[in-house]
């Protein structure tokens, strides 16, 4: 049986949105293989999350144990691998988030499986599903085949629709005891970057700033707030210490695909383009008419962002 197991991501019992996109991808794989879609939830106090997932018409295996409170690859991987065996999963997937990228290769090693990271789409059916994924910072699209009985993958969440609520699935508790004393990894702390703004990977509009801001993100943030948008940044802005790491859009940061992406003072290095070129409409505001970003932008404005952004903000305000 070519069943599909999707590993849910949650924090403090609340499911992350990436989970629903991964579930959407899992549903497509299950349709191609003719197998069943099963979701796995691990954590402490995750009964509510399991119920919510089951409302999407899938069977949910839930490992709820105090020892699983903090996610650790070392403690989660054996539980997920065992679950995959229990449900006869030949495909095991998750969202290509920091969580999915940390955990799934470890699960794959346990299942002697090969893996495809950041999958954009699938082809084939039965046991021969292939994976379309980016290489060389998105400059190349590869079609890969995983030549192992079990196949593991993470999906780029912006490429898959979230699974709709359809039908009522079941919740199946799974025994998983974790002895923290036996672990060689210890969770010490988590420092959240707090924000009132929407999450970068999930926002309808993203306004990003780069080197051209010279460290002054006030106008970028003001425009974002006027639009109810998330704020992003180029690697240059993050590396300079101007804004938090978490804001970086690009090959090595976050991949976004909003309806509208405004790049202000960003030249458009390959690294950055890899993270935003899937956006529906791209606007570039840059003083340099030769900036590579203009080759990609639907609407380009050669201007000083410190003049153009407040003006655009005023227009939007007046248009409301």
């Amino acid at each position, binding site marked *: 049986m070519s069943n599909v197991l999707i590993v849910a991501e949650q924090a403090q019992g609340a499911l*992350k949105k990436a989970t629903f996109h991964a579930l959407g991808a899992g549903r497509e794989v299950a349709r191609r293989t003719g197998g069943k879609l099963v979701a796995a939830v691990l954590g402490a106090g995750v009964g509510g999350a399991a119920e919510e997932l089951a409302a999407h018409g899938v069977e949910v295996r839930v490992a709820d144990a105090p020892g699983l409170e903090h996610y650790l*690859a*070392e403690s989660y*991987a054996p539980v997920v691998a065992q679950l995959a065996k229990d449900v006869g999963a030949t495909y095991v997937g998750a969202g290509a*988030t*920091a969580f999915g990228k*940390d955990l*799934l*290769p470890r699960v*794959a*090693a*346990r299942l002697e499986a*090969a893996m*495809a990271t950041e999958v954009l789409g699938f082809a084939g059916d039965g046991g021969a599903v*292939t994976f379309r994924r*980016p*290489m*060389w*910072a998105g*400059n*190349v699209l*590869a*079609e*890969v085949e995983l*030549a*192992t009985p079990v196949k593991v993958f993470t999906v780029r969440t912006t490429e898959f629709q979230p699974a709709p609520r359809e039908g009522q699935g079941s919740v199946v508790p799974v025994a998983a005891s974790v002895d923290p004393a036996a*672990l*060689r*990894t210890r*969770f*010490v*702390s*988590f*420092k*959240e970057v707090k924000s009132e703004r929407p999450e970068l990977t999930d926002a309808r*509009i993203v306004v990003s700033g780069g080197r051209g801001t010279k460290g002054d993100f006030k106008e970028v943030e003001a425009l974002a707030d006027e*639009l109810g948008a998330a704020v992003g940044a180029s690697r240059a802005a993050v*590396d300079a*210490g101007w804004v938090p*790491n*978490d804001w970086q859009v690009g*090959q*090595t940061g976050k991949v976004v695909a909003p309806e*509208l992406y405004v790049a202000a003072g960003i030249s458009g290095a390959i*690294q950055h383009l890899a993270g935003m070129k899937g956006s*529906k*409409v*791209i606007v570039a505001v840059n003083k340099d008419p030769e900036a590579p970003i*203009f*080759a*990609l*932008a639907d*609407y*380009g*404005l*050669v*201007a000083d962002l410190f003049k*153009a952004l407040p*003006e*655009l903000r005023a227009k939007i305000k007046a248009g409301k």
Partner: protein
Amino acid sequence: MPLKILVAAKRVEDPESKIKVKPDGSGIVTDGVNYKLNPFDEIAVEEGLRLKEKHGGEVVVASIGGDKSVTEIRAALAMGADRAILVKHDGPLDPVVVSAIFQKLFEQETPDLVLLGKQSIDDDQNQVGQYLAERLGLPQATFASKTESLESEAEQKKQPGLALAADGKTLEVVREVDGGVETLALRLPAVVTTDLRLNKPRFASLPGIMKAKKKEVKELAAASLGVDLAPKVVVKKLAEPPKRQGGVKVADVAELYEKLHAEAKVL
């Protein structure tokens, strides 16, 4: 507490090179492409050197590839690594095979710490460190970073971002995760993969380059390690992504607003 550190070093296409796919989709065009040490591995080498400078020990660089990989190995030795291992292998590799080879190297070298880049910028898989940790039953910390910015005083002092506890057996690692930063404590030996902001790699000095020529590079044939070398990630076909049509330049903010409002209908 001296640390023996094994660092992975992969030869990759220079990210500044233009990558083009061969017309038949069987690979990329390598003519005119430059090669360099994978940028994330360069950060791993730097971190290994900083740990050694602070705690003493040895930094051993390991690479898997053809003869040409010696160039990138020498680059790491010129930065200050002590010696190197080149596992000779021509042809495609995948994370399953690479991690199996590194498992053998770990068993031969028994280091306290394995440092790898979080991903290589050619296949962008982001898997080898995690596979290796699981194969060896070791703790892992991926996406290692640090909280201070690169321009902080700590950076200038060239302190390592990875903090060895007083017991000499526990490593504290700050990780970049979604929504913030996380700190983990790992009991050594452990596997750590490096993110961009862990450090800023040093440039090799001329004396460093001269010295590197005399440092030991041990060559091993991959086939001698008893590892299945057949890739399990089989690349069937490569293609260039669809080109995005460049759009129009607008004259001023008023026109931009009008286009976004009336034409694109996103405002």
